[in-house]
């Protein structure tokens, strides 16, 4: 297990959207747990940083929130992806992939020398 890297700003929002797309409606704790798992525990995540990010996404209209009941009959605030959120996720994913591909070429090119 390598050093846990700090989460990059802005990428947290993308990770939240992806998580919600994959798992459907989920509460804040669940999203945090899931992000940690998905990164293979390579990311160190302060769960508290999730909530401001969730608020921002909600303000921008990419997710919506609703109070519901969890499996253990506990009240929790559930977040869900909106249609706009879906579109945003697609757009961001595409951009990230492109950026990664370009960078990949650069790094590969330099290595060839």
């Amino acid at each position, binding site marked *: 297990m390598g050093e846990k890297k700090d989460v990059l700003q*802005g990428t947290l*929002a*993308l990770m939240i959207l992806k998580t919600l797309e994959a798992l459907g409606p989920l*509460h*804040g*704790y*669940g999203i945090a*747990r899931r992000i940690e798992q998905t990164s293979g525990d390579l990311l160190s995540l*302060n*769960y*508290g*940083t999730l*909530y*401001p990010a969730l*608020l*921002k996404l909600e*303000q*921008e*209209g*990419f997710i919506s929130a609703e109070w519901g009941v*969890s499996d*253990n009959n*506990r*009240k*929790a*605030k559930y977040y869900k992806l909106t249609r*706009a959120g879906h579109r*945003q996720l697609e757009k*961001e994913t595409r951009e990230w992939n492109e950026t990664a591909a370009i960078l990949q070429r650069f790094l590969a090119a330099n290595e060839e020398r």
Partner: protein
Amino acid sequence: MSTPPAFFRAAFLRFMNLFRKQKLDRELSAELESHLQLHMEDNLRAGMSPATARRRAVMKLGGLQQTKESVRDHRGTAVLESIVRDIAFTLRQLQKAPAFTAVVVGTLALCIGANTAIYTLLDQTLLRALPVKDPGGLALLRYSGASPGGYSHTRASDHFYFSYPMYRDLRDHSSALHGLLATAWAQVGIQWRKQSEVADAELVSGNYFEVLGLQPAAGRLFVPSDDLIPEANPIVVLSFDYWKERFGADRSIVDQKLLVNGHPFTIVGVAPPGFHSVVPGDAPAVFVPMMMKPQVTPGWNDLDQRRSSWLNIIGRLQPSLTRQQSQAEINSLWYSLRSNELNEFSHNPPQTVRENFLTNSKLFLDDGSKGIAVHNDVPSMLVVAMALAGLVIFVACANVGTLLLVRAGARTREISVRYALGATRSRVFQQMLIEGLVLGFAGGAVGILVAPQISSLLIRQMWSQDAARFALSAGPDTRILAFNFALAFFASLLFTVAPIFQFWRPDLAPALKQQSAGMASGSLRLRQGMVIAQISLSLLLLVGAGLFVRTLHNLKTLRVGFVTDRLIAFSVDPKLAGYDAQKSIALYQQLLEKLAAVPGVRAVAATDDPELSKHNFSTNITVAGYKAAEDENMNVEWARVSSGYFSALQIPLVAGRSLRDADRNGTQRVAVVNETFARRFFLQPEAAVGSYFGKGGGNVKTDIQIVGVARDAKHTSLRSSTDPCVFISFLQEESSDKMTFGMSFYLSTFDSPGGTERTVRQIVQGLDSSLVPKDLGTMEKQIENIVSGERIVSFLASAFGVLSVLLASVGVYGLVSYTTAQRTREIGIRTALGASGASVIVQVLKEVFWLAGIGVVSGLLVSLAFAHLVRSQLFGVTTIDPLTLSAAIGLMAFVTLISAILPARRASKVDPIVALRYE
């Protein structure tokens, strides 16, 4: 990550969040608590104890409070919330200090209100463009060089009046300007349904309304074809206000007739609302086509006279040409027109005349968007007033800044605690700024309420009798409101700077311990500097006020050469009622008889040249036996008077006799001249008696005999020196001179005139009900009006002077309060060591007077410079008037003393034990 629509949605929600704060906070707490519970459950399942489970969950969250704060920050309302909180805090604090708040808001309200009031008037008289179509495309015509009314020697470059033939030529031949309109002011008698009144009228060319692009409110307006043939079209257009007041906005008056100077005119329409005249400040009741001038100004028919300049011209520039191009083009036309005129006037004009009239004469196209600025002196006075008001507002801000500093000084401890608790500098400044803004806007709001009152006061002072004639309103409009609040905002910023400087680098420890040693010397210097500046400015204003008050007093008490008390004056213009020359002379004789018979009246004088009216009628003369040099000015003042003139006004004769009743039509024409005339043409007054002269130049017959020489008196104005003057009996005026002239009557009474004015009115109306005595009142009141300009200036200067002195005293008070408060400990020690209260006071006062001394000296220097600058406006006072200067200095010293003594006494009464305990 956010797209534009997302950004706005977020921004909007953030704003709305302001109002849902509590609900959102509750939800957040619930959400975070549920998060912790979920995490705890997982931890419990993993086998931890309940306590550990909870602790681990909280740690993993990153701290409950921190998370809450973090979310709250992201709500985006932090800044707005803090502002709201600061405003509430400020209001609470201000409520606890009512005296301070009252003084500050009052000072600001007065200054801002005064500025707004002056700006309102300035806007209406100077800045506002005419309410016509495209005012920017209008050009006002002005020319330099000699005027065609005789061989004038003025080289002035501001002739605004043209003759009608010149206007016609310019209008018909100019290509640079199209749509040249002409306008002139006149006064007429209007009779409608048996009621007569005197009203202002405007003679306008037929294209007047077309060029200005105006639409009628009723009926129609003039068209060029209305103004082609002299005396052919007796029609009028009513002004909107006159239509509303006099005719009740009744649409059926169109096509009805009213009498103008006794002649029937048809009303064809009404001008649009909001338009008064192309001369700003004038408000004529009716507009009359220029071709009807003979009826409007009876006896003065000069439509064809090239020598008579009586109208103003405004034209529209061709949009395709620049102003320079238009000016160049019209100047070539001007030159050829003037050249023709010159040849017509004289066949072989001397070289100087040719130069003055032709070579050095140019036509200028001035900006006409604000119309014809005939009433020019007042706007410049308003500008001066505005500059003064601006200065005073600056002083007021300095003062309020000082007061805020005093307050801030008392809050040093509180602010240091804030810093210690982690407040950022920006938060502290935000609170101070908000306090300043709240005060500033409060002052602005009250100022807006006060401004109309100040405007009305100014209008009454500055326009006095003419107030009704001028279309000025005291109320503010949106632009003025915006100006007012911009001013309030500006002022707030200005005076909050001071306390902020104070707390720029706070020394926490000494401030917390209430030690005073660390008081920044820089800010003290600043405050001292401000007080010095205030004292200097106050002194300047006081000196200015003193000089002008003395000028005013000198003008009012000037020996004018004739008796001015117990003198009632009025004038009558019978041509407005349709009288011709002969009838009016008969009328005057009747009036003289009847007025002399009124009980309490000692004597009656009549003259067609009203005293001190700044107008006079002058003409060229030829004196027998006196050879005039080639371009010597043979112009003298010419007055037609009654035989009792000199005795009624108590003007003594130094030689010969006065005019007599026997000097009438048919007998030898005689005249009385004044001393200046006699000395000019005869060296000795006695030598003048018996000599002859004639009216006019060239080869006119010198058939008027001088029978007496009168003492000089001021006829035209109070300030100007006397011109040579000729008095002839109005009964002896040439019968060929058909001009009907108005007459002014002066009644000298034994006691102060009581109901005499009413009697006069009865007599005049008794002779003819359509006659209206104009300007009926005492001579003293008239002189009041004459010196209205000086009165205004001295009023303004005094008002500002008093205001400035008050402000300076507040400034001194504030400064001394502050410095003694800071040095409480030091004073306490000195008292404990045996210093008496008096010595403390003396020490404080010594420092103050040192400051005041610097202020006075610098103020004195500036005052002397200022006095030198305005010396042309002064009368009877030198620039280094000792009375004014010593009074001003004395007053400043006294005020400074009073303002300093109060806080000094308070400081000296400090209980040393209390002072020392403040450590």
